[in-house]
């Protein structure tokens, strides 16, 4: 440093001042310029990219943190909360957020914002990720840019339907919101295909209106002939089929649910906002299918003098047993004035003209004309018991013979009034009591004892080998009888008798000729006995016939074809035997023979002299004996047949009894067996699958 001083060269080293500024500038200056440019550009870019500031107002800002909480749209972060503050008056929390410039134009008046928080409901857990990451604000808007807005009101509840979600939005009407709550599922054949949004009261406050969103492609299942019904919770229905309990899924048990089905085809496709009614249950919904729910109904009134408890809006209106409408309203009205004023209970009947068989295009006026016509001819309204257990009533329109003349009047109020007749209300209590009393009075125990005894007897009888063999024996017996009757011997009896008589005639003639009168007393006695026997035998013949006929009748009532045939044949044979002219002529012949004998005897007495006739008489005695023997078997046969008939009668009677009784017993046992099987399978099902009780499947 000191060496520069003496040289004095320093002035040379210093550049002349006149040199231009540009020349003196170093290239180094480019560096800060570039840095500045980059910074400025970055800052500008940043400023440009900075999102649009929007303000969302919430009731509370639980979990929202400035600088951390993001705004998401379809799970993509599109903005961030910048500040959280109160508005003037502390009424709402204003959340200021910046959203990306690209999405800002879409934030029009349909944009909705809500805070996503963890949510545990019966249908599941949602927003679980926010437990760790903190809440975020979810936005929902459609994909059409509109007039951009910058101030929004946040929703307290998440929106269920995403904008742009494909499906159809329909409006459901219900009488109360008991079964509908936001988020409740809409089911179709048990599959969740949509959900309900927040229910609201209808404009006039009489109904609950709820919008339902049906996701594509299930929305195609809905036509104008689709019916919706309430499937919430469980339902117990009484019916002729017994009690049925229907439990749906646990979610619908708590939240309620709506099911729909399109049972008949031919409905027109629907548009957004189509209105449907929610029916109380599936049956009602299906019932309604065959009428247009929006069809005009004819409203007529009926004034009842007695209590209408048991009649409710919705109670059926029947005409000759067919449902033609329902009770739409019940109220009390005053009829008459001053001291004549009376309170009557007015039931308004909504009658569907199409149900009267009037065709689709029938108007209510046509229906009114028809009804008025009917009333003039004796149509009257009355209440009848619909269900004896629940005591519910229904209104029935009946044709009364010789009814007092009446017409459809329109005097007392809004509706034409259908005249009434005496109602047929069965009081449940009284009826039940009466039934019970009658049941009580029945000798049930005696009956049971008798039945037990009878069953015991039948059992022993049925178990008895003899009983089992009875039909066979009977057949055999009948066969034998037939064989006996058909046998030539028996057939020959009349012939033999005639021969004997002829012989006797001959003998008598010879005796007359030879004039022999010997030991006649014995012969006469024998002959008398023989005659008596023959008489007895012949007397028994009609009885046999009768009894055989009875047997045949009994046998006829049996289903044993062979038996019947046999019996018929037997009968025919016996008949033939009985109708045989020879048999019929038998008594006459015998009488003749005896007369002749008597004449012969007197002649013999007069003539005397019978010596060689003893042998002849002995042979005649033998012949008489033979006849007697032959004839004496007849009573035995008759007795046997009689016994047989009695036995058969007994057997048949017991069989007849048994067949009905045992059939019933068997049917009862089978029923019990079936019931036991059903219970067993139910318990097996529940055992195998206990959660079926919960999930309803």
């Amino acid at each position: 440093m000191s060496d520069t001083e003496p040289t004095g060269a320093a002035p040379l080293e210093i550049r002349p001042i006149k040199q231009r500024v540009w020349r003196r500038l170093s290239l180094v200056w480019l560096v800060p310029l570039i840095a500045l440019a980059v910074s400025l550009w970055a800052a500008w870019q940043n400023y440009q990219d900075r999102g649009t500031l929007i303000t969302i107002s919430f009731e509370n800002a639980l979990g929202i943190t400035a600088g951390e909480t993001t705004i998401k749209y379809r799970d993509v972060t599109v903005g961030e909360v910048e500040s959280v503050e109160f508005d003037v008056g502390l009424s709402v929390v204003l959340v200021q957020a910046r959203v990306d410039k690209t999405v800002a134009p879409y934030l029009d008046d349909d944009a909705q914002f809500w805070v996503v928080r963890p949510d545990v409901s019966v249908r599941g857990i949602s927003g679980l990720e926010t437990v760790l990451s903190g809440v975020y604000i979810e936005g929902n808007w459609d994909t059409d840019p509109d007039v951009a807005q910058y101030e929004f009101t946040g929703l307290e509840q998440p929106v269920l339907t995403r904008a742009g979600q494909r499906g159809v939005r329909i409006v459901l009407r219900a009488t109360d919101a008991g079964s509908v709550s936001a988020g409740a599922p809409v089911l179709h054949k048990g599959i969740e295909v949509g959900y309900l949004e927040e229910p609201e009261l209808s404009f006039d406050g009489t109904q609950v209106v709820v919008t339902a969103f049906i996701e594509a492609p299930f929305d195609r299942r809905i036509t104008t002939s689709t019916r919706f019904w309430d499937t919430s919770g469980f339902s117990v229905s009484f019916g002729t089929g017994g009690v049925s309990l229907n439990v749906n899924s646990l979610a619908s048990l708590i939240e309620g649910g709506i099911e729909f089905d399109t049972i008949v085809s031919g409905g027109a496709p629907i548009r957004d906002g189509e209105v449907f009614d929610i029916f109380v249950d599936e049956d009602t919904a299906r019932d309604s299918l065959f009428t247009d729910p929006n069809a005009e109904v004819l409203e007529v009134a009926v004034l009842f003098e007695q209590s209408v408890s048991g009649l409710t809006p919705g109670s059926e209106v029947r005409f000759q047993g067919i449902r033609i409408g329902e009770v739409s309203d019940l109220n009390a009205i005053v009829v008459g004035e001053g001291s004549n004023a009376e309170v009557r209970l007015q039931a308004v009947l909504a009658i569907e003209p199409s149900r009267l068989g009037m065709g689709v295009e029938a108007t209510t006026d046509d229906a009114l004309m028809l009804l008025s016509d009917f009333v003039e001819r004796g149509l009257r309204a009355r209440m009848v018991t619909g269900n004896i257990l629940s005591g519910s009533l229904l209104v029935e329109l009946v044709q009364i013979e010789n009814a007092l003349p009446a017409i459809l009047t329109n005097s007392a109020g809004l509706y034409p009034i259908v005249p009434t007749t005496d109602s047929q209300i069965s009081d449940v209590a009284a009826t039940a009591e009466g039934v019970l009393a009658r049941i009580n009075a029945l000798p049930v125990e005696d009956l049971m004892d008798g039945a037990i005894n009878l069953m015991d007897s039948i059992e022993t009888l049925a178990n008895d080998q003899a009983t089992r063999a009875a039909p066979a024996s009977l057949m055999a017996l009948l066969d034998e009888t037939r064989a006996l009757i058909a046998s030539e011997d028996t057939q020959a009896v009349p012939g033999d008798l005639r021969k004997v008589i002829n012989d006797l005639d001959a003998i008598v003639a010879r005796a007359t000729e030879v004039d022999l009168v010997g030991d006649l007393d014995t012969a006469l006695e024998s002959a008398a006995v023989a005659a008596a026997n023959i008489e007895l035998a012949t007397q028994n013949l009609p009885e046999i016939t009768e009894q055989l006929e009875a047997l045949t009748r009994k046998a006829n009532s049996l289903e044993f074809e062979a038996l019947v045939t046999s019996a018929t044949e037997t009968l025919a044979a016996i008949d033939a035997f009985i109708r045989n002219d020879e048999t019929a002529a038998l008594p006459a012949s015998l009488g003749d023979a005896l007369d002749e004998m008597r004449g012969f005897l007197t002649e013999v007495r007069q003539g005397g002299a019978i010596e060689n006739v003893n042998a002849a008489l002995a042979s005649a005695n033998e012949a008489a004996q033979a006849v007697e023997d032959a004839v004496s078997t007849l009573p035995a046969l008759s007795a046997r047949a009689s016994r047989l008939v009695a036995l058969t009668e007994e057997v048949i009677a017991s069989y007849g009894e048994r067949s009905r009784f045992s059939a019933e017993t068997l049917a009862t046992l089978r029923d019990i067996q079936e019931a036991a099987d059903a219970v067993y399978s139910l318990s097996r099902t529940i055992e195998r699958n206990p959660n079926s009780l919960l999930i309803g499947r």
Partner: protein
Amino acid sequence: MACQQCGQVHRQEVQYCKRCDGPLQSRDVDSLQKVWAWLIAGMIAYIPANLYPMLLTSTIGKHSESTIIGGVVELVEHGSIGIAIIVFVASVMIPVGKFIAIIYLAVSVQRKSKDNRHERHKVYEVVEFIGRWSMIDVFVVAILSALVQLDTIATINPGIAAISFAMSVIFTMLSAQAFDARLIWDADRTQT
């Protein structure tokens, strides 16, 4: 006259160093310009370094960004005053101090101030020495980002500020380098 590169002393007329062949300059004429240029670049770079987040930390679900000052405040709030001081000194005081020192030196040379020549020389030496330590912050960020990459559990990434801070440090170092300390002496030369 001494060679800038190897320190060999030459006579004034000599154009190139005999030992290292480097060009000889008694004074760097553009020195002050370069100083200013680098300094301004450094200061420009220092602005985003403070405005933008230095560290992008994401632990399970949580995502946080911290600027230098924000980090210091956070550390103080957590009670780690010692570390807070170190960070503050390394990232704020030193760069800012360097800017001030260089500005002071440059201004004093331009105004040809004759005061505190020795002190100014000391200041220059300190600035040059301390310059490289300013990179401590950048190193910390670099090491943390490299080590803490545990995916969803915890991840640390350098922010824009880390780069601009590094730039700022580099620019100021260059600025300090560009400063020709010999100019400090020239003030009284022209006077005399």
